[in-house]
């Protein structure tokens, strides 16, 4: 009997650890500018974040956007058509010290923004967009579904850097 209890007692954290190891992580990497700048790396298990969201206030659990409901039937087709299209530059806007480029690369949309000395790169998996579209219930999104969609990414998600200043990178691991 004590052996069973011990096994049971150990099994729970083992299962928990296994879940943690097999889960997707969003890794937030913040690096301060300058030679002595601090670096903070925070791995966030997405599965745990989803569980934690269940205990968050209602306004954090649900984003209301009823005004986009009428476009929902089109959204999925847009993503599908985009997925089937050949790779290339879709949109480019260049001004004096600002640039925005959106490029399709495989099943990803790459957004590159230059604003003065700040650079922002965002990679959006089209599968994740599809997940978000399908998660829309006619009134809004459950943020836990959005987190699940984020888990679709593999690699860099967001990278913000500015010359001599703080650098922030979020990637999925």
């Amino acid at each position: 009997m004590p052996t069973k209890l011990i096994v049971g007692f150990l099994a729970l954290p083992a299962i928990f650890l296994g879940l943690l190891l097999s889960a997707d992580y969003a890794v937030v990497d913040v690096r301060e500018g300058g030679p002595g700048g601090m670096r903070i790396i925070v791995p966030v298990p997405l599965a745990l974040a989803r569980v934690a969201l269940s205990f968050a206030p209602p306004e954090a659990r649900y984003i209301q956007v009823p005004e986009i409901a009428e476009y929902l039937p089109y959204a999925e087709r847009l993503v599908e058509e985009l997925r089937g299209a050949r790779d290339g530059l879709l949109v480019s806007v260049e001004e004096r010290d600002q640039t925005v480029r959106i490029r399709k690369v495989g099943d990803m949309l790459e957004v590159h923004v230059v604003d003065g000395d700040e650079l922002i790169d965002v990679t959006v998996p089209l599968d994740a967009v599809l997940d978000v579209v399908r998660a829309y219930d006619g009134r809004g999104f459950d943020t836990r579904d959005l987190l699940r969609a984020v888990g679709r990414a593999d690699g860099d998600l967001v990278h913000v850097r500015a010359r001599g200043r703080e650098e922030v990178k979020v990637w999925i691991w």
Partner: protein
Amino acid sequence: MRKQAISTAALATALLLSAGGVSAQSAARWLHVRVTESGDNGTRVAVNLPLSLVQVFAEIAEDEIRKELSGGGSHFHLGHEIQIADLRRAWNELRAAGDAELVEIEENDQRVKISRLADKIIIEFSERGNDSNGRVEVPVSVVDALLSGDGEELNVRAALDQLIANTAGEIVFVEDQRTTVRVWIE
């Protein structure tokens, strides 16, 4: 005038986007839009979209246009300021005449000239006040389709179908002193 040029291009693009069906052959073709402001600090915009994607945008835009304008289906009423039936009769006469200057309107310092050259209708406009001018080229087949409706209706959808499905090359070119707008399909 710069705003006018940009709005003209935006309208042309919106019209393009509001087209309904696109033939299967359009799947491999792309719509390209370029807006270029002169000068080192001028804004440059490039949009490249597969026509299959444009088709979906077209349906969204068509819904929006339908909300803005009265009428339904694929036809839009333009009210009674312009008699479309008269325009259609005039067009039938004019299109048989071949290359010609069709309309020229001068008002204050603005001038608009519409002429036909081969298979294109060329609309030129200028404004002396700010020394600007522009030019839009529309294939004759698109005007035919536009006026293929009945009574006081313009068949916008047919015109845009024609424009997207069977037109290759440049479809809109507007320029003034500062801004150049090009829309083409290839």
